[in-house]
């Protein structure tokens, strides 16, 4: 199994059906477009914390945080407040895009390093 087959970068968009419950806007949190709390179903600290970081990297975002209201419910709330130059939804999309860009560059760099082969390689199963 080669690294390239494992990385199926072309995400087949048609095959994935959209779950309407996946992202909801928590009732009463979007008083104006500049603020909102998004509820992500079946997400946890993995996406929550990474997304919070890219959101906070956006200078138009005044406030961004995430919380998991109850540990036995697979839900993550992401709160965003932005300046007047953008909206919470736009900031969310930008945050996701930025994180996605970051990941694609990490894979590229990793595969390049792997191809270069400038490292200790050990055939033994438990080399170190």
């Amino acid at each position, binding site marked *: 199994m080669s690294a390239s087959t494992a990385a199926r970068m072309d995400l087949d968009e048609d095959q994935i059906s959209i779950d309407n419950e996946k992202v909801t806007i928590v009732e009463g949190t979007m008083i104006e477009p500049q603020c909102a709390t998004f509820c992500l179903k079946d997400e946890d600290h993995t*996406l929550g914390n990474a997304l919070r970081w890219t959101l906070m990297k956006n200078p138009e975002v005044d406030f961004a945080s995430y919380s998991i209201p109850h540990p036995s419910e697979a839900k993550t709330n992401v709160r965003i407040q932005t300046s007047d130059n953008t909206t919470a939804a736009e900031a969310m999309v930008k945050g*996701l895009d930025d994180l996605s860009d970051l990941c694609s560059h990490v894979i590229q760099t990793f595969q390049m390093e792997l191809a270069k082969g400038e490292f200790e390689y*050990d055939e033994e199963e438990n080399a170190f």
Partner: protein
Amino acid sequence: MVAEKKNFKHNDLDTLRSRVIVERDRVTSTASTDFPHNYPGQNLAWDFEKFKEMFKLKINRLSKTEMEFDMIGVDAAVANAFRRILIAEVPTMAVSNVFIMNNTSIVVDEVLAHRLGLVPILADPTRFDFKQKDETPTDLNTIVFKLQAACRHNPNASPDETDPLKKYIHANVYSGDMKWVPQGDQTEKFQECPIKPVFDDIVVTKLRPGQEVDIEIHCEKGIGQDHAKWSPVATASYRLMPEILINGEIIGEAAVRFQKCFPEGVVDVVEENGVKKAVVVNPRKDTVSREVLRHAEFENKVKLTRVRDHFIFKIESVGSVEPQDLFIQAVVALMEKCATVKRALQATLQSE
């Protein structure tokens, strides 16, 4: 690869931003603060081009089951996401249904089933589908093994033999006794890498003459979040690059004492014009035991920090998937998460 060297200053802003500070009795400056508007005169907004420039990844060691690499220029939130996905969300194949026709061994059925569940299976999970709850097993989502063993006396053993392995035939049932039963076109599909347990020498149960096991095993695709048996790694972890800063010089016999505060290879004692001098040569090897901070003579002479964005990442695969493939799959999984959330968000916004 050594990160840009810092000067010895007490908590200046730059150190607070880029280093975790290790003190004698506490660790400070742990949270990331490199966000826009936090530092005057610095633009810390997300910039993909700048990220590409700053991001570095270097593989140190690679083997069939383990790898270590340095990842520089990402936040702990991202490194942690990769780590969490490696442990809990990269799929593998594992035993999920055990049909016990006969089991007269000392290990009871449910314990035996649990033990079988934890045996890692050497099969490429990308070539299988997840089996949904209401689906029936097919050659696309299930691997079948048969485990049949019966124990009897070894006629060739000497009468006073005490070792059960010599006295009896099949005294131990090993994972290697699991025989793959290909379904559908699995024989052709997996011709180049026949499906088997990763290790053949895992003791599943023990038998005595007259005892036997007769079991059919079904493996399914799953993720570590549902059960640890599906986790593709023994562990995936990272640590931050240690950094040792010396204020001025540590010379003479103090240099030797200083060296002894660290593991071998971290500090070198060099002679300059006949004077011994301590030089930090390989902080990577430091365990950050903080021994040096216990000595009054080095007070205000040394400062221990860790580089906040320099991760020494280690992946220890269980053996079913090679570690370099695991990492790529983990990063792809995070991208897929972003894509699904984005698509669902746009759908939600349209419907409102």
